[in-house]
């Protein structure tokens, strides 16, 4: 249940952000900043990889909503990939799954 670590890889205007650890408030802030930075650098496709995310809480999800909104305003394509089953359930509960494509591992 380590703190969230992010690793971003950018290629040809597309970015993949790998989440590793616990997406809580501080992790959410970090993620939101990172995504905003990627968008401001011209990325028009964002992929958030949850393959190593250990847990997500509701505050972390709130920041995901910010990320979704920022991507929408920046006209960028956003996708959540490698989402574990338990996290996917939370996404469905809170309506995220209807706003962003969510792919299982």
């Amino acid at each position, binding site marked *: *249940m*380590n703190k969230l670590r992010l690793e971003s890889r950018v290629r040809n205007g597309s970015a993949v952000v790998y989440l590793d650890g*616990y997406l809580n408030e501080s992790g959410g802030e970090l993620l939101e900043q990172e995504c905003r930075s990627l968008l401001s650098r011209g990325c028009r496709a964002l992929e958030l990889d949850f393959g190593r995310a250990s*847990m997500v*809480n509701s*505050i972390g999800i709130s920041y995901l909503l910010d990320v979704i909104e920022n991507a929408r305003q920046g006209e960028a394509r956003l996708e959540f990939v490698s989402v574990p*089953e338990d996290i996917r359930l939370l996404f469905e*509960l*809170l309506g995220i799954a209807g706003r962003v494509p969510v792919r299982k591992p």
Partner: protein
Amino acid sequence: MAAILPRRQAARLGELFGKRFLPGLVAIEGAPRRGKTDLLLQLHGALLGRREVATAILRLGYQPLPAGAAAEVAAQLLACLEWRRLPPGPNDSTAKPVLSRASMARLAEREDLAAWKELLDAAASDSYGFFAALGRLAAEIGPVCLLVDDATDEVLAPVARSSVPELAVVATASGPAASRWARQVVAIEEFTAREGTLLAEGLARHLGVEFCGEAARPFSAYCAADPFVLSSVVHAAALAGTPLDSTLAFVRAYVADLRRGTLGAYFPAVLGARLGSLERRCALEWLADERYPTAAEKWRGRVSLDDVLANLAGAGLAVAGPAGWMPRRWPAARDWAALQLARPETIESEAARLATAVLAAAHAADGELAREPLRRRIAGGLAEAVPAATFPSRLRFREVCEVAGEPLPGGELFLCYGFTGAPPAAGSAALLAVAVADPEARLGSVLEEMENRVRQAMPFSESRTTSAGTAGVEKWVVMRQPEPGDAEWAAGHDAQLLDFERFNQLIAARSDGCVAARWETVLRLPPEADFELAAVRALDLLAERAGCDAQAASQARAALVEACLNAFEHGRTDGSQSSSASVEVRLAAWPGCIEMAVSNPGAPFAPGGAGPGQSSLHRGHGLKIIHAVMDQVIVSSDLNGTTIRMTKKFPYGGENRTAGLPEHEQAASGI
């Protein structure tokens, strides 16, 4: 801090000594049969080929200093001095002083050796004294290098503490003691940095702790959170075929007991070296790819229990077993002769006495022990019998055993308590357990016992993990080792305190044969970020014990996190971010059901509403999640605060066990 010389530089050890004399301890460490001794002998030859350093070799085989060792060392040093007096010859690079046994025997008879011999012999029964004498000798005759094969902690500790600039000791060891004491370490088992990092990250992930890869931690921190201990437990568990979850639960609890949230940057290299006796790829598979069962199968064919025990003992860790049982290579076996001779039924109490004594020594040495209940027991029962002065900074198990008189209940387990080296630091008294005769059954029991103990020492104000049964309207709290005050605690929870024997009698007497095991934990958490994870760890343990399936456990975990976050937020009565009163988390689990209650003392809050200082954008989802994933949720508020009670049911053994209980028992099970 010790520097680790990689293997490719190991062969250059002789050159290293050639460039500059390295006082203090240089350790060559690695698993058995990996060439440590060969390297030592190479160095011996290289040093003998030069005249400026008097060199002696001592083959200990993980035994204490044998009688006659002093004379032998003195004879070897004298032979070097004799050779030094000879004029240089053309074959100096290959010539060696004569060190045959016959030659040494002759030298040992010489009068000019008598003073040395007397000096060393006088201190030979005590390695501190021996090395102090050797240091004085080195100061007199010039640089001395002693090469020790299969060194013990007893030998390494005094050398590490010595500051004689003319004395160097190069020692081989398969345990971690060497790296703990040494100024430089030659790691025979070298893992690449990438592999080491993978191992560390993998294990940290399993343990649910933060792996701090960048920030170096003090060496002392490593000593306390010894990854060797963890990996040894994992070895033993794998060999015994213990399920992954049980092993991880133990390791997790162990780490929790250390009260640390991070593992040091030193971790990768050391863990890599410790796992050297395993087939490297298997370890990686388990730690990095989570294919534990497959890896465990592979390990079984390649690593013997003897290897594990040899490593443990090489680390200065005590091992106890039934009478007649002896690993083929058991270092320091002499100290355990008494145990070997004891009747099987007495072994446990002997081991328990030892364990108590070791912990008492740790307590005496620095006054700090991670396990509060044990500390209380020791403080109460052994404080007078074990004065601090009895124990210097190292431990001699036999002596410790003799002064300890207080038994520690061992139950049906073989308990192995070890001490990872002196000076003892808080938390460094390691609890290890190895099952021998019936590995699968016993190790499982041991792990359970360990969990119990560790849970009792959770770093919060009130924490208990108990096994309880329900019968009629009575609530039982059953503890293996009741402590003073536990009866009052149980009474405060409307429960009757029972010991295991009484518990078993009552269960056996039940006509329906139903064992409604129930486990409870009460935590009081500060309302601060990330403390919800402590509750999650406790829940994981309970859920595992109750046989909860992964999906239900995951949902309960999500609900618990949200309930805690709510409580943290609303528990700050003044609406600020500062902490105030603690949040109480009560967890209970039994086959078929998990119950959780999270209470905060702050002002009542409207379910679903945003907390003080929070925007509605970022809050309000918690209760939605809780309601969605739990079977029953009750939120109650009064002037004293708010409590969220949650129930999650799960299939167990093909049926919901609570459904089979009488109604009054179901009612009695409520938190």
